[in-house]
């Protein structure tokens, strides 16, 4: 019986709507007041049935739920023969619940899409040597599985045989297919776009990278901040309080109408639902864009960040020095370039490598007698000449005289952030090269976006030498740059920033920076989603794409703002309703219920806006 009624809520809602229309039509158009009364009374009873059942079940487990308040209100209205109000209130309550369900499904859709990407079945090699389809839960570590074109990889594993291209967007957010062959790692939830693979299972189910991501997101969407826990505690006592208030009003004023109106107005819907709705929509948006935000506490902290610390220059630069500028001081440098290449070929210094790479195929000469001058460069005998390759200090030491032009070139190259390599042949300056690390594409504009979002301090802490760090910092307009930093120095530096009262986010790869990731208010792991990074950080950027960072911060800010709006809407509505019941003429049960349901829909729709957020 109970199941029958609760399972047909939608039909009941439609029937009661029809009855209400019949009721009002017969009263207003045909003046059949008797018929109108019957229709509205029937609508009330019908509509109240599922609500009353829920109320009864709630009371059985000692909860004064909204259903209880509404049931009492409807019963009261019925008693004083106000069938219009009882019918409309029950209808609005049922219809509101229906709309809430539909809209809530939408807000949760982003995360649902993610969880539905989880593989469900696998082709497992059985003892008979055939591949049989089994549920993914029945796959164990060590099983051999067959993955066909178009299928999802069911486990994290290693390719035994076969070749193919896999779309790893579900793990890395990168939609470019990755080639796989024997020995390659494959990940659960990724899709084989072409080819056939045999895979041995290394990790299954919740232990896979995808499984962890899903678990993390699922927990994040329901994690609660301090403020939410307060609202929960508050609402536990709020509904009983409304019940008491309305009883008191009834006893003292003997006005049943007023008492039941208070019951309806006091329903706490939007307040309890508002924050979780913003939370799930914000986290869902992130999950779609390769940004994992671990819960509403994280969103709250992240939205207030004023200092972002980067763990190394490599995050901002390509990490690959290249020859950027070149000047020559003799008419024909062809031979000199050959000498230079020959000398640098013997060194594994990063600058030397950059030069060899830049010069490409040139004539090479046999190098005799090489002298490495520490902190200066190399002096060698090549083709009967003395060739000196190194910095300005080495040149001076070799007695090279600089022309006016050379001096100004050196100044200019340094100002552009170059490391200088000079080449002199027999004490005469031939070539000046400027070498620098390339800034990653787009980093500058992303940093600019972060500043616009209110981040005041952009800091880089690096193990590189101070010179390199300063150059990067200057090019990008960072506020602070510190070189020669060991992991423990970085952690100490973050402590210092926090002592100054700053809210610090630390961006690292999660490999050797776990202490700093854990220490900063917000640890942001950037990279291919390694286990350590997923565990220790608060925010995970699914691949090392720097552009996700402004999106993550903007989203956190938008979500935090959305939560505040929803709380304001909810509290505002209750205050206005309660005030108007005492101070206005127009307030009654039906309007109260309408406003109450509308406010719930408004907070859901407001939350839904976050699904469309773009930085």
């Amino acid at each position, binding site marked *: 019986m109970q199941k029958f009624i609760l399972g047909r809520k939608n039909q009941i809602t439609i029937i009661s709507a029809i009855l209400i229309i019949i009721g009002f039509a017969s009263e207003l158009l045909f003046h059949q007041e008797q018929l109108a009364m019957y229709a509205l009374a029937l609508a009330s009873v019908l509509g109240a049935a599922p609500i009353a059942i829920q109320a009864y*079940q709630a009371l059985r487990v000692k909860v004064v739920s909204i259903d209880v308040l509404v049931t009492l209100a409807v019963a009261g209205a019925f008693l004083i023969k106000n069938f219009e109000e009882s019918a409309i209130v029950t209808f609005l309550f049922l219809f509101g619940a229906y709309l809430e369900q539909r809209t809530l499904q939408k807000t949760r859709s982003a995360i649902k899409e993610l969880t539905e990407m989880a593989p469900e079945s696998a082709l497992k090699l059985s003892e008979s040597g055939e591949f049989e389809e089994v549920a993914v839960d029945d796959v164990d570590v060590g099983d051999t599985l067959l993955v066909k074109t178009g299928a999802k990889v069911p486990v994290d594993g290693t390719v035994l045989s076969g070749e193919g291209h896999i779309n790893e967007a579900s793990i890395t957010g990168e939609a470019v297919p990755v080639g796989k062959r024997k020995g390659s790692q494959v990940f659960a939830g990724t899709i084989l776009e072409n080819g056939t693979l045999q895979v041995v299972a290394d990790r299954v189910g919740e232990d896979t990278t995808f499984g962890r991501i899903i678990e993390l997101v699922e927990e994040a969407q329901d994690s609660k901040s301090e403020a939410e826990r307060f609202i929960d505690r508050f609402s536990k006592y709020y509904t009983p309080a409304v019940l008491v208030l309305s009883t008191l009003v009834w006893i003292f004023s003997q006005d049943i109408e007023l008492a039941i109106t208070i019951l309806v107005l006091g329903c706490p819907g939007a307040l309890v639902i508002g924050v979780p709705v913003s939370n799930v929509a914000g986290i869902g948006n992130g999950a779609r864009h390769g940004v994992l935000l671990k819960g509403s506490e994280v969103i709250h902290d992240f939205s207030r960040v004023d200092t972002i610390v980067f763990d190394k220059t490599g995050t901002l630069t390509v990490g690959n020095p290249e020859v950027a500028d070149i000047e020559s001081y003799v008419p024909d440098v062809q031979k000199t370039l050959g000498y230079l290449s020959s000398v640098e070929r013997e060194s594994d210094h990063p600058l030397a490598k950059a030069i060899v790479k830049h010069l490409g195929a040139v004539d090479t000469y046999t190098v005799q007698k090489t002298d490495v001058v520490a902190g200066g460069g190399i002096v060698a005998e090549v083709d009967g000449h003395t060739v000196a390759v190194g910095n300005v200090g080495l040149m001076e030491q070799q007695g090279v005289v600089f022309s006016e032009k050379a001096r100004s070139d050196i100044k200019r190259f340094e100002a552009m952030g170059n490391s200088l390599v000079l080449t002199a042949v027999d004490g005469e300056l031939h070539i000046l090269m400027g070498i620098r690390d390339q800034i990653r594409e787009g980093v500058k504009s992303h940093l600019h976006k972060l500043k616009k979002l209110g981040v005041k301090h952009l800091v880089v802490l690096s193990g590189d030498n101070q010179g390199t760090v300063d150059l990067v910092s200057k090019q990008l307009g960072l506020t602070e740059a510190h070189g020669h930093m060991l992991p423990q120095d970085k952690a100490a530096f973050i402590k210092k920033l926090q002592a100054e009262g700053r809210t610090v986010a630390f961006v690292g790869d999660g490999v050797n920076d776990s202490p700093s990731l854990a220490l900063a208010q917000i640890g942001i792991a950037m990279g291919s989603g390694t286990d350590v990074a997923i565990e220790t950080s608060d925010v995970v950027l699914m691949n090392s794409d720097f552009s996700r960072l402004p999106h993550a911060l903007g989203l956190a800010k938008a979500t935090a703002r959305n939560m505040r709006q929803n709380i304001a809407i909810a509290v505002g509505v209750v205050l206005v309703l309660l005030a108007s019941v005492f101070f206005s003429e127009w307030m009654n049960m039906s309007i109260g219920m309408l406003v109450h349901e509308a406010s719930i829909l408004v907070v859901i729709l407001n939350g839904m806006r976050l699904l469309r957020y773009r930085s």
Partner: protein
Amino acid sequence: MKKLTIQLETLTCPSCMQKIENATKALQGVQKDSVKVLFNSSKVKLDFDDSAIAAEAIEQAITTLGYEVKKSQVK
């Protein structure tokens, strides 16, 4: 001690979390502190003593409240 995860129909009403929490906590054999009702993912997670109560009985208690159980998993 076993772990039970129940997937429910989409939870929408604000007070349903409290109802489900109270209903499951009242059951003999259910670890009170372990009960977690997840509103957005519409799941219930709890630890229970399988010698004192069957998973089906816990599901039944939730169904009685009027919430449909879609899927459950004992671990």
